[in-house]
């Protein structure tokens, strides 16, 4: 009962937050810019063209009315038309959103895969070199500018070693000669559906460097959280008992301690996903990844506010929903959360 009330309250709060987000995006994208009509009318507009644009955009209506129009358009998934390309933004989003989500999901998985074993190793060898190296790495990961790490990885793995592609999402030959049928928009999944191992391998190779860039910071956090949770649990009685019974060290670490230390994993999933969505703006430019980040960075240069507003809305809603799911999952795993 407590749990149900907690979940309901979190959902209502999230709905409230989404309304607030919509309002804020409306203010920043439609009210702050000096003259949206001049931007909409195109390069070097005449006075009549600007006037026409003002009417088309309904800029003379009072603010509450304009907000109502904006909010109902957003709710129905009508994001309007790009100032620059005159294309429907909703269609562009359908093409770019899966690319960003694929990157975010993959980098989150990578962060857990790197961070958790490192955290276990650090806890098992407390104060020794794996521990020190790990904590050094996680401090460095926080201070590293995302965009610079991306360039370094390109330099080492694409330029010097030549083992991974420099940029893009699929090799040009594949994209041109035998394009992939888009089903989910996730290249890895679509390749499996189409049963094409070559495309799968190619997509995977393209994913690794951008995902590694985005995974470095959350992996550091995952390592630190796993380490401290493990250290606490290794001192508990059931672990001491397991030791006394003569169980092997790996069996104690992975069989008895780690399952109890998985609480932080949920936190890291949320954090990593958020970090990937945010970092996408920087990473997608550098790796020429055709996702929302690159889309919005092009829109920034063109002052294409409907596009910027749409991307901000979509990404923020992904973020809010993700946080809601994590909160609920955490309450289900550990009912004490709901009571506090």
């Amino acid at each position, binding site marked *: 009962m407590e749990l149900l009330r907690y979940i309901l309250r979190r959902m209502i709060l999230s709905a409230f937050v989404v309304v607030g987000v919509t309002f804020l995006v409306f203010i920043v994208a439609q009210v702050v810019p000096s003259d949206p009509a001049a931007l909409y009318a195109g390069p070097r507009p005449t006075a009549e063209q600007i006037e026409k644009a003002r009417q088309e955009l309904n800029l003379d209506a009072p603010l509450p009315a304009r907000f109502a129009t904006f909010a109902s358009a957003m709710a129905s998934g009508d994001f309007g038309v790009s100032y620059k390309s005159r294309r429907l933004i909703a269609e562009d989003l359908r093409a770019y959103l899966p690319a960003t989500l694929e990157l975010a999901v993959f980098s989150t998985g990578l962060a857990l895969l790197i961070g958790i074993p490192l955290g276990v190793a650090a806890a098992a060898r407390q104060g020794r070199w794996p521990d020190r190296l790990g904590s050094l790495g996680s401090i460095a990961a926080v*201070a590293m500018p995302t965009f610079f790490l991306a*360039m370094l990885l390109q330099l080492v793995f694409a330029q010097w070693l030549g083992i991974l592609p420099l940029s893009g999402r699929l090799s040009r030959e594949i994209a041109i000669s035998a394009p992939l049928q888009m089903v989910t928009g996730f290249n890895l999944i679509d390749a499996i559906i189409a049963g094409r191992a070559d495309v799968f391998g190619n997509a995977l190779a393209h994913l690794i460097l951008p995902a590694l860039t985005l995974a470095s910071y959350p992996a550091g956090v995952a390592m630190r959280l796993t380490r401290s949770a493990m250290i606490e649990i290794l001192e508990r009685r059931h672990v001491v008992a397991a030791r006394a019974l003569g169980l092997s060290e790996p069996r104690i670490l992975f069989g008895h301690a780690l399952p109890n230390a998985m609480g932080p994993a949920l936190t890291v999933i949320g954090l990593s996903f958020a970090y990937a969505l945010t970092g996408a703006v920087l990473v997608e430019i550098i790796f020429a990844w055709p996702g929302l980040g690159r889309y919005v960075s092009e829109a920034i240069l063109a002052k294409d*506010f409907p596009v*910027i507003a749409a991307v901000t809305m979509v990404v923020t809603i992904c973020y809010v929903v993700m946080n809601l799911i994590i909160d609920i999952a955490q309450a289900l795993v550990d009912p004490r959360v709901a009571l506090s």
Partner: protein
Amino acid sequence: MTRLVQRLGWPGTIALAIVVLFVALAILAPWIAPYPAQGAGAPNVIAKLRPPSAEYWLGTDHLGRDILSRIIYGTRVSLTNGVLIVAFSLLIGLPVGLAAGYFGGWIDEALMRGTDVFLAFPALLLAVLMAAALGPGFLNSIIAVAVTWWPWYARLARAEVLVLRGQPYVEAARLAGVSHPRIIIRHILPATGRPLTVQAALDVGPALLTAAALSFLGLGVLPPTADWGQMVDAGRKFFPARWWYSAMPGMTIFIVALAFSVLGDALRERKGGAARASA
């Protein structure tokens, strides 16, 4: 010196030295930079994209300007960015947090739900939206980041006030008929100041990183003013063949952010607490 090392540990002391060094570079830029005119933006087309050498220690950029001088001048922008972002955020967050914590009730509810909305955005994305709306420029990019930053201070200040509000000396002041604004400013603000200034000092590093990301996206200061993030972006066209153009300012950002973060850890361990769950 030995007392400092005792207090901060070796890593903390080295980090502090690096921070002090960069502050000195920022203040003394015109006297320290080998080519002050180039640092300030004057082109030097006879020496375009030279690799690091005895003449140009860190190489030159696409206009032939000495990268070392540009980095030294860029220190001014980056450090003021970091400090001003934190200062502006405090300016918004502190009053909001104080009012929410002190008055409680519906004022608290309204203010905190408002901050929730700001926290619901992925921070960099809101900053990008804001900076795009305001247009590029030094002050605008600072405002854009501060808009995403202040809710943390509001939360921190509120938490501090909630504890202080029940203190006997505050209740005594209220019974003595002291007005609300006076209680907040004279009796509560000084006591919240300390943990908040520690947190604010620690946040200069992350703030500087966010500002660098904005200027990498072309939303920071405008050329010819030197700025690290902008230099990394400008060098991208020549990367990796002329790696030094991007790599030198990129390394600089990393070193400064690292110094702030190590110094922060050292201070936090000493203080015990004042930690914030950063997202």
